[in-house]
């Protein structure tokens, strides 16, 4: 506050809504009955070069002024954060992006977060933070002065996720079911090869059900991504969704929609929305090469970095890739007549960065009539998920990450010599590349974990090789 023409100026704010914050604060305080001195009031949002948008800093500006005016004691607001927009009559309005802000504040030591009623449930998802809902400035001032107890936040009950389709619905396809179990247990990337209509999409959808629920940290991260992407409609989430996500973008998707993008500041794309879950890419050979190549960085580093005019952002993108493709040029439905060499040539189109990262390539068969009429009962999602959970726990216990990311030298140390020799022979025979050696060994590690064994034996390595037989790292036969 200084001498000069009476007024309220906010500097450092970009965007019209930010610059008009002063007017809103003045009007709201007047409506609440707080008299403002006839002096020049200057507020600065620092650092000035960080772009700001919207009116979410209104509440914080207002509190700073109230403390300066002595309406609220400084001790009443220490360790507190404020997020909300002010209406001219003094009520507090909900704003977007509360969850990521709350998570960030909790990380940086804030103990309490004041938000509008409409944001209370979303902020309460961060359990490390005490979220306080406030209706208007009167209530805020009373609470900060200790004259009123904060209202309790609405209790959040975990929302029952949508009923997940059961693995028992998938008929036949024993090889693919087994591959799915391994993929779930080791977070290995998978390519489903099968004719149209044999259940590739069905299987991909059921992988999500076999995966364990997300941890609180993972769920928070995912909800924050959804919040930034604007997918949380209305007042925001009321409970943390712990279901691993499944995203299945179409092959006509643009790079911006897949990886993240947009003008100004990039929004998260499909790969980030699939974080801690499954990204399903159907008709893999229809996808433009450029997009497949662009997936390399996120696959390797678990995040994606997007530069746009106003900012460079980094979004998490730790997804598990499931692709699907026809097994051969003719599609394979109704009896394939493709020659072996043609099929190898067709599958070799999947060379390059993506092929190097796929570990499991189960072959699915067209369904026979008797499988539709008289399905043989098969294991349900619950049974498989139980084994998967045990195997994942074993891996996390051993090297704190899932087997897909396990350090090669340590995995080798858990394998028997004769098991390693099998892989060596496969490399010599030309059916496995040098890079494929460790990838196959990690899959073998997962097979051993599923069997509850500490040591990787030859049977596990043989199975791992069988699961990538359809890939053929190296051109072996003429």
């Amino acid at each position, binding site marked *: 506050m200084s001498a000069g023409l009476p007024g309220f100026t906010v500097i450092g704010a970009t965007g019209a809504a930010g610059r008009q914050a002063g007017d809103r604060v003045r009007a709201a305080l007047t409506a609440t009955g707080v008299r403002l001195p006839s002096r020049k009031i200057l507020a600065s949002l620092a650092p000035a070069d960080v772009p700001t948008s919207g009116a979410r800093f209104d509440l914080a500006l207002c509190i700073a002024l109230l403390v300066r005016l002595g309406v609220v004691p400084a001790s009443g607001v220490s360790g507190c954060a404020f997020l909300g927009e002010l209406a001219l009559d003094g009520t507090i309005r909900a704003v977007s992006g509360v969850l990521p802000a709350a998570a960030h504040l909790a990380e940086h030591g804030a103990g309490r977060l004041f938000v509008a009623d409409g944001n209370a449930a979303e902020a309460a998802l961060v359990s490390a933070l005490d979220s306080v809902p406030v209706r208007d400035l009167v209530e805020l001032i009373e609470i900060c002065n200790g004259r009123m107890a904060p209202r309790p936040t609405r209790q959040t009950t975990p929302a029952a996720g949508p009923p997940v389709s059961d693995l028992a619905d998938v008929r036949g396809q024993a090889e693919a079911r*087994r591959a799915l179990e391994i993929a779930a247990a080791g977070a290995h990337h998978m390519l489903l090869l099968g004719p149209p209509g044999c259940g590739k999409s069905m299987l991909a959808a059921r992988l999500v059900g076999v995966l364990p629920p997300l941890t609180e940290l993972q769920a928070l991260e995912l909800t924050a991504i959804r919040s930034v992407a604007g997918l949380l409609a209305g007042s925001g989430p009321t409970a943390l969704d712990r279901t691993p996500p499944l995203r299945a973008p179409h092959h006509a998707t643009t790079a911006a929609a897949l990886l993240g993008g947009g003008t100004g500041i990039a929004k998260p794309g499909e790969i980030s929305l699939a974080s801690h879950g499954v990204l399903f890419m159907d008709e893999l050979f229809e996808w433009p090469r450029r997009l497949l190549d662009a997936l390399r960085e996120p696959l390797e580093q678990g995040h994606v970095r997007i530069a746009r005019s106003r900012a460079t952002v980094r979004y998490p993108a730790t997804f598990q890739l499931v692709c699907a493709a026809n097994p051969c040029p003719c599609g394979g439905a109704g009896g394939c007549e493709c020659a072996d060499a043609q099929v190898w040539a067709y599958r070799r189109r999947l060379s390059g960065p993506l092929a190097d990262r796929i570990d499991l390539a189960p072959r699915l068969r067209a369904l026979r009539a008797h499988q539709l009429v008289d399905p043989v009962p098969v294991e349900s999602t619950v049974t498989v998920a139980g084994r998967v959970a045990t195997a994942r726990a074993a891996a996390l216990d051993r090297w704190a990450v899932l087997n897909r990311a396990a350090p090669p030298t340590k995995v080798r140390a858990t394998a028997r010599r004769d098991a390693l020799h099998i892989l060596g022979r496969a490399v010599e025979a030309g059916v496995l590349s040098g890079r494929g050696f460790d990838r196959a060994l990690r899959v073998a590690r997962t097979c051993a974990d599923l069997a509850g064994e500490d040591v990787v034996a030859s049977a596990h390595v043989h199975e*791992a090789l*069988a699961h990538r*037989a359809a890939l053929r790292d190296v051109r072996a036969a003429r």
Partner: protein
Amino acid sequence: MTSSRSPGGRGPAPPLSRAQRSGVLRLAAGGRADAAVQQQVLRALLDAGSSCAPADVIAALDRRVGSCDDIGLTRVGARLRALHATLIVAGDDDYPPHLWDAWPELGAPLWLFSTGARPPAIRRPAVAVVGTRRPSTDGLRTATALGAALAEAGVTVVSGMARGIDQAAHRGALDGGGTTIAVLGTGLGVDYPARSGDLRLAVAASGALLSELPPGAGPRPWQFLARNRIISGLAIATVVVEGREHSGALQTARLAGGQGRDVWAVPGSINAPASAAPLALLRDGAIPLTGIDDFVTAISGSATSTGGRSTPDVAWQLSADATTLLDLLGAVPASTDALMAASTLPAHAVLAGVAELVDRGAGVMTPHGVVRS
């Protein structure tokens, strides 16, 4: 195998004079003389006897067949020298006697362009191994083993240098350290099939590359059909390893039958599309090729081959599951689902067992499933 066997028989090919040869080269370099025109020319030469200048005979036919002018002839000559190729005309010492014998009705090529390290190789008895350009993994293996076994028994292997079975047969013969001949459907100087350059060099070094077309002739469908009569004519027996319904190999085999030569067919599954041609031939009376050793014995009269399908004795080092699965494997690719149903083993055991068989060399992985090796 002599002309006396055929009703319209004739003697050995007539020796041609120098002038006649140059006329033939002119025709050959023109590249438009098909089998019928060649017959005409030969018949005219023979009918004219010694009373007429051969150059006149050919000149008389020139208008009909469009032979090469002097400039073209020079160019073809230079090309032939660059390829180290020679012209073999009927009646020459190098002209394969079997080929001439095959054509009682004067269908043998009047000339052949030849390049290779061992020209006499083409005079020796040979066996043709032919098949589809889109073989199964099993067919490729059979063709390679056949080529190797024949080579080891000292029998020349003839084929057509096409992708698939043909090339596998050539490679097998080279692996067996023997002689192999490729009859091309293009000129000797054309890189066809693509990326077969190394193999063509190796075949030429072991035996010969033959073609009745001028060195620059590119691939045309009818040339390959015409070429097949030379393959069957060079061989005392033709083996069809794999072929589809309207395969060129089927035509080669039928030509061989018409030439009075033995036709052998490798029996395949009735469910395998690539076995359609051999099965059709078997129905029509071809000899079933039931074992490579037996076949080579029958052909060469002596059992010298070791390249047969003797499965290595691996049973002692296989796991119980793998042993069970080995008994279920055959030449038709088996899927995981099918093996599960037949063996009642769980999926992971079948997958591991199959990979173990492949690892131990007892099975081969194909895109459609696993086959026994």
